[in-house]
């Protein structure tokens, strides 16, 4: 038999190691990773649906997404002006607003931008919901803003050449140009009455979103360079409107901690009595 003291020290060393191990294990679970999505921060008191410079936007974290020239289907374009877009979103439980920001050296009448969403449960190809050969796809909902009217069009597509404005126009948009960059706000109610053609936004749920931008500059011959399918595009990314805060996790944690405390208490009582 070893002197009790030495054994005790080993117990402690081991205990400390275990505690450290659990803390490391627990921490890696709770550290949030760099998110690949746009979050709509929940706010109270009305989202700034027509003000790209509203102070409320500073409470929404921006997410940046890389853009490519559209070389996926004809007509292609090999070089575009906009290389990245920065996106923020806010919602108040009723309305959602997206703020799209990007650098564009010149303000042109034909400048335009769009958001694209998957609609419903079916997957849709990011290029206008073009048909997939082995998977049944769904439509996409496109919110299209152009500088000429400084308004939004609420559109649907399911394949190339099928893009058309919807009967029900539910989206508003407004762009403001300054210092070499565009800020465009798109907004809509979280849900609409037309679930077959409009994306329905349920707080807490992830939804696929993509972006497109046209720089309306003209070439030497006076022709538009970026138009129609010749634009800057992104892949699918995720969007989520924040769910209202849920504190039940804290309650469960408190109950578990209380149970553990009670268990310790009973155990020590028992041990003391048994001696």
């Amino acid at each position, binding site marked *: *038999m*070893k002197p*009790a003291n*030495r*054994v*005790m020290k*080993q*117990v402690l060393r*081991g205990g400390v*190691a*275990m*505690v450290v*191990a*659990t*803390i*490391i*294990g*627990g921490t*890696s*679970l709770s550290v949030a*990773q760099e*998110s690949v*999505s746009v979050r709509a921060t929940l706010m109270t008191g009305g989202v700034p649906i027509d003000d790209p410079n509203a102070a409320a936007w500073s409470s929404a974290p921006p997410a940046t997404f*890389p853009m*490519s*020239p559209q*070389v996926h*289907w004809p007509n292609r374009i*090999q*070089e575009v002006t906009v*290389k990245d877009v920065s996106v923020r979103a806010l919602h108040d439980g009723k309305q959602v607003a997206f703020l799209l920001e990007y650098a564009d050296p010149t303000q042109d009448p034909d400048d335009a931008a769009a958001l694209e969403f998957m609609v419903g449960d079916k*997957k849709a*190809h990011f290029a206008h919901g073009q*048909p*997939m*050969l*082995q*998977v049944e*796809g769904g439509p996409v909902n496109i919110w299209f803003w152009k500088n000429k009217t400084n308004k939004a069009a609420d559109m649907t597509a399911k394949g190339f050449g099928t893009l058309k404005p919807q009967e029900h126009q539910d989206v508003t948009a407004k762009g403001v140009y300054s210092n070499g960059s565009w800020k465009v706000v798109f907004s809509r109610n979280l849900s609409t009455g037309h679930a077959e053609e409009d994306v329905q936004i349920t707080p807490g749920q992830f939804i696929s979103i993509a972006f497109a931008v046209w720089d309306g500059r003209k070439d030497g011959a006076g022709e538009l360079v970026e138009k129609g399918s010749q634009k800057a595009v*992104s*892949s*699918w990314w995720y969007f*989520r409107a924040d*769910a209202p805060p849920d504190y*039940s*996790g*804290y309650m*469960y*944690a*408190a109950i*578990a*901690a*209380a149970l*553990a*405390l009670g268990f*310790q208490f009973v155990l*020590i009582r028992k*041990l*003391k009595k048994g*001696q």
Partner: protein
Amino acid sequence: MGALGKPIILMVGMYLFLKFVLPNIPGSAPLPSSLIFLYLLLTASGIVIYETLSGESKDAFWGPMQRFLTGENVGGLQALRYGVLILFPLLVGWQTYGSTAVSDLPPTESRTVHPAPPGEYTGLSNPVPKTPDNIMQGKGFYAAFCSPCHGGNFDGKGPAARGFIPAPANFADPTTIAMLQESYLFWRIKKGGVGLPIEGTPWKSAMPRWEVELPDEWIWKIIMGEYDGAHQSPRTWE
């Protein structure tokens, strides 16, 4: 080594294995920490059962533990004892919080990079003779149609690649075309991203469906040019 030294080393070793060694074994992935916690609990109960099987080791194992818990004759360790008694419930609470909290991360979608091709695209052989002329032509078509995404150097880093996820394939990488047969490439090039089965997440792929723009003969020539340019050769079996 006391009766307690070995179990402790075993626990720490088990933790390090689960956390750092296992994820690096090919084909496995990092374990969620709730699972690691569960495995550690199982290991601990295994040790307790093993240690309490024989009367003698039982005493060596439980004796010091009991004295520490009840606080008898622990002397200078009293402060530590209180620390452990406070920390334990807090840890239990923390673990519970972690396992009930909703994740902030988007759903993870796994993508099968090389799903099985449809039957009619297995075992086809390139009908175009492998002459320097045809290879040259293939490289020319590649430069015109494929290089914006797959890159002039066949490395997947074309000028249009940056926004596309999944990224355009890097043909110089030994895990792409070097692992594949010409027949498989013929399928992928003809049908593109939209031709993938569901496990290939076709809705995300920017790979064009070239059959609507290029004749088969060009595609076979491009395949030759692609292998030659990327310094790879097709997988041949069967």
